[in-house]
């Protein structure tokens, strides 16, 4: 029997101990009228070999063109050591570290993870993960409402330069709590939120969200936005790309006003840190904050402590925030998080180190610039937005991007993300990205294919 070790003798002896004649007798408390018919709609079981054949065939049906798409999920090289270690059974098949003494491996690793995320963002503390970047932003908004005690308005300023799907998820999650998300439009020349366009007297605002880089790959004027928000009593929620953190100003240092410097809450998608693309998941969301509001943070948090003999060890801490203790008054309903993904991310950041991560970031930036330049050589292709960017860029094509992408796909190129549905005002706009995994030859191939398609 697959995955069931019982011999016939075992089963017989066990039934005798239970005092019943058959396994069926053990279900005698279920009302008979509820007993289900056979599972006819499920195929018969197959052995590992047959399933392996099927899955290899299915994997082969996924075409994998040369990827120039980003939009929140980036193809980076993942050092071999990362998943070799992550899939060790001791990490892979452990539960949430509730029994701390039997989980010191996972707990110490998560404490290291929290440190690394706090370092990367220049924030004081981090949690041990949320589901993904989009839900992390929704949780950050809910946290800001709890943490900003002076604000009563439950009003969040939300730039349109935040990832459109993140904004969708936020709507789904926060809509039941009387929170208003007020959209801020972007500057059409820069593709950023122009601080000068913000109201001088905005009234009671709970928080301002600042994406860095934003969905267009454009770098926001985070200093000015942060100072504006803090001046008006709003908290700042940064939503950042962790790779970018290696080279651009981290949210803990945003703002030039001395008092209250830095973002208050920072979140984002952790996928660039060693997680495969895998059709969108599992990834992980991360969240960092200022220590003074850590009691409002959702999700698990690991803390250091000592044992009976004074030896250092690690435990889940501040559990009184969480659903298993606080129930209907918890900071969030989250329980299971994305533990294994943070394991991989911790090992990724360790293997890469500060130098490796910076080199990756620099290479991504250089590749995207080279890509934009090459594609711009084709007649009718223009680059939108004149503000500095990182790693991703918006182009305008002479024809609908959807059509062009379909024709590029025939040439085995995933040419970027069509922005027509989310930003119709941009015309035939296409979001492109070239990470460190794209070679000069790859970029060349894309440029040639685009010239053919538009030619």
């Amino acid at each position, binding site marked *: 029997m697959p995955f069931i070790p019982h011999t016939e003798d075992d089963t017989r002896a066990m039934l005798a101990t239970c005092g019943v004649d058959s396994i069926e007798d053990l279900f005698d408390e279920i009302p008979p009228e509820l007993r289900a018919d056979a599972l006819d709609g499920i195929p018969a079981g197959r052995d590992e070999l047959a399933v392996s054949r099927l899955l290899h065939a299915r994997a082969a049906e996924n075409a994998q063109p040369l990827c120039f798409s980003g939009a929140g999920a980036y193809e980076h090289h993942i050092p071999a050591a990362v998943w070799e270690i992550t899939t060790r059974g001791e990490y892979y098949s452990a539960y949430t570290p509730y029994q701390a003494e039997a989980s010191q491996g996972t707990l*110490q690793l998560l404490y290291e993870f929290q440190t690394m995320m706090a370092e990367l963002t220049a924030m004081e503390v981090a949690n041990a993960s949320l589901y993904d970047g989009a839900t992390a932003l929704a949780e950050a908004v809910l946290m800001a409402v709890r943490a900003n005690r002076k604000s009563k308005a439950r009003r969040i300023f939300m730039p349109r330069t935040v990832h459109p799907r993140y904004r969708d998820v936020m709507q789904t999650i926060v809509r039941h709590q009387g929170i208003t998300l007020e959209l801020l439009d972007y500057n059409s020349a820069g593709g950023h939120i122009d601080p000068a366009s913000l109201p001088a007297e905005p009234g009671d605002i709970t928080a301002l969200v600042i994406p860095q880089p934003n969905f267009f790959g454009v770098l926001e004027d985070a200093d000015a936005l942060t100072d504006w928000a803090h001046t008006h009593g709003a908290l700042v929620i940064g939503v950042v790309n962790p790779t970018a953190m290696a080279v651009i100003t981290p949210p803990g240092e945003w703002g030039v006003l001395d008092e209250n410097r830095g973002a208050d809450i920072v979140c984002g998608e952790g996928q660039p840190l060693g997680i495969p693309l*895998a059709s969108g998941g599992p990834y992980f969301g991360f969240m960092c904050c200022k220590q003074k509001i850590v009691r409002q943070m959702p999700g698990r948090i690991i803390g250091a402590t000592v044992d009976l003999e004074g030896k250092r060890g690690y435990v889940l*801490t501040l559990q009184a925030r969480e659903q298993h203790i606080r129930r209907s008054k918890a900071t969030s309903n989250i329980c*299971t998080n994305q533990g294994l993904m943070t394991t991989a991310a911790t090992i990724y950041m360790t293997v890469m180190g500060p130098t490796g991560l910076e080199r990756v970031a620099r290479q991504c930036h250089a590749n995207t610039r080279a890509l934009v330049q090459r594609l711009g050589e084709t007649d009718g292709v223009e680059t939108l937005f004149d503000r500095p960017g990182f790693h991703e860029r918006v182009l305008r094509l002479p024809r609908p991007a959807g059509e062009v992408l379909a024709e590029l796909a025939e040439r085995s190129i995933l040419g970027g993300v069509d922005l027509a549905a989310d930003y119709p005002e941009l015309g035939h706009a296409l979001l492109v990205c070239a990470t460190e995994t794209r070679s000069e030859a790859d970029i060349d191939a894309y440029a040639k294919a685009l010239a053919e398609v538009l030619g």
Partner: protein
Amino acid sequence: MSNEPLIFEHSRPGRVNRAQSAHLGGNLDGIPESLRRKQPPRLPEVSELDAVRHYTRLSQKNFSIDTHFYPLGSCTMKYNPRACNTLASLPGFLGQHPLSAERDSQGILACLWDLQEMLKEVTGMTAVSLTPMAGAQGEFAGVAMIRAYHDARGDNARTEILVPDAAHGTNPATATMCGYKVREIPTDTHGDIDIEALMAAVGPQTAGIMLTNPSTLGVFERRIHEIARIVHEAGGLLYYDGANLNAILGKVKPGDMDFDVIHMNLHKTFSTPHGGGGPGAGPVGVSERLQPFMPIPVVGRDDSGAFRWLDERDLPQTIGRLSAHMGNTGILLRAYIYALMLGREGMVRIADYATLNANYLMARLRDAGFDMALPERRATHEFILTLKHQAREPGVTAMDFAKRLLDYGFHAPTTYFPLIIPECLLIEPTETESKQTLDAFVEAMAAIQAEAEKDIETLKGAPYSLPVRRLDDVKAARKLDLRWQAEA
């Protein structure tokens, strides 16, 4: 076991792993100084060997299913077949960008479609959405659908969700996130919902009830039809927390119990790994009346047989998206592979042997002198032992037993949940454990009981053989130390 320093303490300035980044670099042209980072983050600077050795050593400080019996109630810690990981990690799956064209994603879409169909069959529900990323998110989707249903009918008076007092904490927390007040329903002395109290609680303000069956007390809720009738007659809907589906797979279908929505924890019943805390997958199954509100995306099929994503254009009344893409696809894939290997007979066998193991272990522990919380009831896939007598005399708690079990090489059962049973251990052996393992566990429990009778200090000081002795939780919360700090 020796202390393993923090990775930061292994760090030496200037140590760089050239194998990963020697050829990489480039200038930051176009990014003005004012936007550039001034100080690099203090990530560890170690060799690849340092990293591999450190994280391998840390792993050895964990208990896991692969190394220990892990009878953690409500968590279904069964063996995670290796084939599921190997096949889900084929490059054709791992390399796929989430915004790939549907035409280029038919392989993964076919797998997800098949899984949707299988979960429909197992639950007896009309439709399934795979997108929720864990049980709690499935709960959120379910309660949000209940709300959307009432709202669509203009029925705005329903402000309360009923939750049994034995429920998992995610249930009440979810109801709050969906903007509902939570009203607790007590449990009767036999472990069933108190029907009188339920009848007194329902009314025009009732949006629905969240029920777990088998309940978190490890017993089957026998009067489920009556509960369904009472809540439906009051105009409320029924939410089924399917975290305990392992016990009834192929035996009972929640759809047949008149439930409107169910979430499943694939990281329990369908054996995807817990990964030290996640990721999971919490698909939802819905009845016909909630189908229009399902979270997107859902896998659909067009006339030519090709698979495609259904979104707000197909489901205009959807509660919306729950993740930036399509949920924890790689976990769904593992569950699919597991389901293929089990097949229809294998699924029913899971319920059979999970139930046999639980009842056997319960009988053996009872014979060894332990008290069961609900002695007259059958166990489902799990059961509750209470140490309330031991807590009074000789004065050892469930926590003490749990910590001492670790010394005997067993992960502790779930302790202090459900909250309504004093000094409890919630024990779930799962079907993948052998009689021999269960027997060894009983021996360990009996030995610990004997130790407790001789000298309670033996238990109070446990564990002794792990990397650390008992840890001070109170200190951790009082004197927060949440990260390493470089010395100034």
